[in-house]
């Protein structure tokens, strides 16, 4: 009887020991699993940093990727009048300043001068409304596509490039100068276009207070010696992550954030250009949106 009781007690102890061992093993397994998860996360983060350090990062933005394709050109030149009217000038953040200066002309026509650079994110933003406005008075050819620098604020903002582009219009002349590419060599952006001495003089003279808010900024735009603008008239942020084709395509939709940012500026530039062309062509210059934009002109030091 006593022997049987002892055997039962021994069996109970053996089972208890087995259970305790199982619990210890389970606890060890769970702890290893938890530590393994932490190690995996640390390895992933360290791996990302290592890959970046050995040069696996995103490459600096490249140069112009050629002429804008037909899809982009068509989108830029076929924005419906209803879109210009629907968006109007609501929310326009800056307008060209009216100045008193000798007329800026070329070949007997009033001239629009743009000086910027391909690396510059604000130039990237401003080329869209400038191009849209100019496309209402004439035709671009060899317009490039590019994006701002990948290592500046608003990196890789999609845009067009005036480098190598030509513009023909019966109403006005246009000179677009892109002083550098978006590629850095030795810490400096590679030079691209050099402004003529005359254009450089215009830049040096009128890209200064009191004509503009802060001196020397790009993009600088002189509209026939009657208006000047410096910097962007809207935030490049709205273009982030888009391709040039997506931006161009969004311009026709008055409800898109891109159209709401670009079109008001385009209307204001159009109104300024109309002042240079004696309100020609009438269909453009007498439209509701341009008439409304004309009332906004000259106020801000852009």
């Amino acid at each position, binding site marked *: 009887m006593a022997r049987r009781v002892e055997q039962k007690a021994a069996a109970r102890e053996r089972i208890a020991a087995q259970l305790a061992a199982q619990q210890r093993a389970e606890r060890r397994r769970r702890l290893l699993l938890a530590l393994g998860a932490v190690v995996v996360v640390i390895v992933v*983060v360290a791996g990302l*940093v290592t890959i970046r350090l050995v040069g696996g990062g995103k490459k600096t933005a490249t140069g112009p990727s050629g002429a804008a394709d037909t899809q982009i050109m068509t989108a830029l030149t076929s924005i419906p009048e209803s879109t210009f009217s629907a968006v109007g000038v609501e929310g326009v953040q800056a307008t060209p300043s009216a100045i008193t200066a000798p007329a800026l002309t070329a070949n007997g026509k009033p001239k629009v001068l743009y000086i910027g650079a391909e690396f510059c994110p604000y130039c990237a933003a401003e080329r869209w409304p400038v191009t849209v406005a100019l496309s209402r008075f004439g035709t671009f050819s060899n317009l490039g596509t590019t994006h701002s620098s990948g290592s500046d604020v608003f990196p890789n903002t999609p845009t067009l490039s005036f480098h190598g582009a030509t513009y023909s219009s019966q109403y006005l002349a246009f000179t677009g100068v892109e002083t550098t590419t978006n590629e850095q060599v030795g810490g400096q952006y590679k030079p691209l276009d050099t402004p003529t001495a005359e254009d450089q003089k215009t830049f040096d003279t009128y890209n200064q207070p009191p004509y503009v808010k802060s001196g020397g900024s790009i993009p600088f735009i002189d509209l026939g010696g009657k208006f000047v603008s410096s910097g962007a008239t809207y935030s490049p942020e709205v273009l982030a992550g888009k391709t040039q084709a997506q931006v161009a395509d969004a311009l026709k939709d008055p409800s898109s954030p891109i159209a709401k940012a670009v079109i008001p500026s385009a209307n204001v530039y159009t109104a300024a250009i109309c002042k240079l062309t004696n309100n020609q062509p009438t269909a453009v210059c007498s439209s509701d949106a341009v008439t409304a934009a004309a009332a906004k002109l000259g106020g801000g030091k852009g």
Partner: protein
Amino acid sequence: MSVSHTAQRSEKSSAGLGWIPWATLVVSIAGLAVAAYLTYEHFTAGSTLACPDTGVVNCAKVTSSQYSKVLGIPVALLGLGFFAGMTVLSLPPFWRTSSPWPARLRLAAVLVGVVFICYLIWAELFQIDAICLWCTVVHGLTLVLFALVVIRQALIPPAS
């Protein structure tokens, strides 16, 4: 069985929490403070962000990038929500409760948090090409929270 389970639970409730829950609470509060600062800077255009804005360390470049928002919601605000939630879930009553839900929520939150910081680190290193110091502090705190929560979870005996 149920008697011993109740006894065990009662013992657990009366005993000290141990250092991990307290460390989780401290890290959550620290994260809440940094995320609140980043959120404030986000909504005030980052004009007073104490961080270099040139070179590799460039908070403004990161906080103004397209990756600073997810589905239109500022990442800083998501971080604030995460740390606010973790602070609440790390309060002692939520460690002592017999309900399994606080522990499950904590684990789910840190899992989502750690995946999200991996995405943000990838964006900083490979897309934005700049590092935001304050964001890196938040990433580090999230990683520490993840480690604390999963280790604590592993140390809790499985329900029998």
